[in-house]
């Protein structure tokens, strides 16, 4: 176990170095144009430089704020809505179709409309992030409720618990793992939509604004790639935190 883990960490680290080395060599030897694809060392030093630079921090912070507040609002809206729709059988099947019909619409297609309606870039961004995140959470809540064991619900009913008691004490806990998976999907989607909205709607600050400004200001590809890298790290971090939380909260699922 421990040796296996050590091996993975060691090899994984070596792999990162290997990829960096290949990128570095490709740029330095002129296999790719170093002016547009800078060597790995320059991207990394760019990333470090940006991390120390308060201006980039401010942009990144603005994106994170819009991203997380949008996801949070989506959770607050979609989970109760899912619980309500999913626990009324007449609504459940009908609601699923509505969701399935609306979901294929790429949420970024709404950016121009949101710009017309909301005008203010911050509102455009937050509302679109929230909209895009509603679907995975709502869908997973509905599917989660469908998989609740009927016998488990009957058990609690037989001990005299009412519909609300069964919903909160059986349906919600047994759907919770799928709901959390939905939130994880929403986090990934939300970051994509947040950056897309910033790129297209503009505004004062945000990762997308920073990247576009860097591009139009003559283009420092090292900084642009470093910015994308930081966004990736952010996404990994959010996902990792949620996976760790899932493991802790849902210990009971370990072997099933």
């Amino acid at each position: 176990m421990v040796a296996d883990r050590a091996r993975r960490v060691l090899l994984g680290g070596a792999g990162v170095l290997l990829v960096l080395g290949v990128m570095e060599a490709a740029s330095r030897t002129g296999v790719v144009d170093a002016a547009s694809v800078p060597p790995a060392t320059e991207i990394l030093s760019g990333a470090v430089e940006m991390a120390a630079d308060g201006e980039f921090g401010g942009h990144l912070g603005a994106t994170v704020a819009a991203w997380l507040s949008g996801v949070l609002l989506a959770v607050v809206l979609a989970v109760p809505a899912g619980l309500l729709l999913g626990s009324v059988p007449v609504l459940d099947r009908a609601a699923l179709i509505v969701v399935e019909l609306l979901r294929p619409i790429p949420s970024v297609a709404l950016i121009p409309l949101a710009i017309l309606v909301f005008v203010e870039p911050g509102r455009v961004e937050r509302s679109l992030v929230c909209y895009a995140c509603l679907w995975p959470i709502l869908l997973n809540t509905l599917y989660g409720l469908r998989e609740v064991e009927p016998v488990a619900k009957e058990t609690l009913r037989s001990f005299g618990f009412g519909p609300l008691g069964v919903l909160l004490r059986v349906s919600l806990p047994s759907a919770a793992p799928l709901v959390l998976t939905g939130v994880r999907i929403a986090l990934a989607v939300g970051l994509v939509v947040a950056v897309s909205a910033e790129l297209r709607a503009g505004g004062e600050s945000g990762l997308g604004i920073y990247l576009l400004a860097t591009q139009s200001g003559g283009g420092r590809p090292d900084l642009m790639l470093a910015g994308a890298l930081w966004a990736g790290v952010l996404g990994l971090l959010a996902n990792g935190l949620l996976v760790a939380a899932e493991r802790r909260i849902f210990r009971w699922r370990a072997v099933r």
Partner: protein
Amino acid sequence: MLEIKGLGHRYADGHRALTGIDLGVERGELVCLVGPSGCGKSTLLRCVAGLLRPTEGTVTLDGNTVDRVPDGLAVVFQDYTRSLFPWLTVRDNVALVLRRRGLGRRERRAAAEEALAAVGLADAVRKYPWQLSGGMQQRAAIARALAYRPSLLLMDEPFGSVDAQTREDLEDLLLTVRGGEGGMTILLVTHDIDESVYVGDRVVVLTGAPGTVHTELRVDLPAPRDQIATREHPAFVALRAEVGRAVRRP
């Protein structure tokens, strides 16, 4: 106490599970329902529990028609793996239902631990259901029902998945519990004829599809019952044969 009159049920898809069931159960009585698979035993139990609304006839409990889950009822389902909540420890599974008994948090836990100890699960209280063997899970489900101190206890094949030794222990536990204060009324579904005669005051044989009451037999065996002495008793042997014939020849 429990009065079943002309009970019948037909599922929405047209499948007819039960018809014309008449059955009365006295307070404090332990009645066993036996019968071949598909005779509607579980459907009958669900109707009595108020989980299923019968399409014909009525179930009354203490003079009140059962149209929802009655108070003071507990059910031990056959499907114990799905009836225990996997996200709760064994103790919390028991403690949860005691909320309906108006007990405080500490009292609930104490009562849960006591009930689990009574079925031999004192060491498993902090474990999750999946960490237990099938027999232990079934015992936990039984402990949950007993801790609730129901006035009417419904059991659907409660000892179906435990080994022979545990099964005998649980049968004796059931006999001890019903003898205690409160006078619990028990309706137990089983397909084990020996078991029905051993624990029951009365054995009701259901047969056919849709199921109907075939025979009712009073079990007059000396108390206290004993796993060896009772099973060797001539009356036991005779009753067992009679129930067996009824089940096999509808």
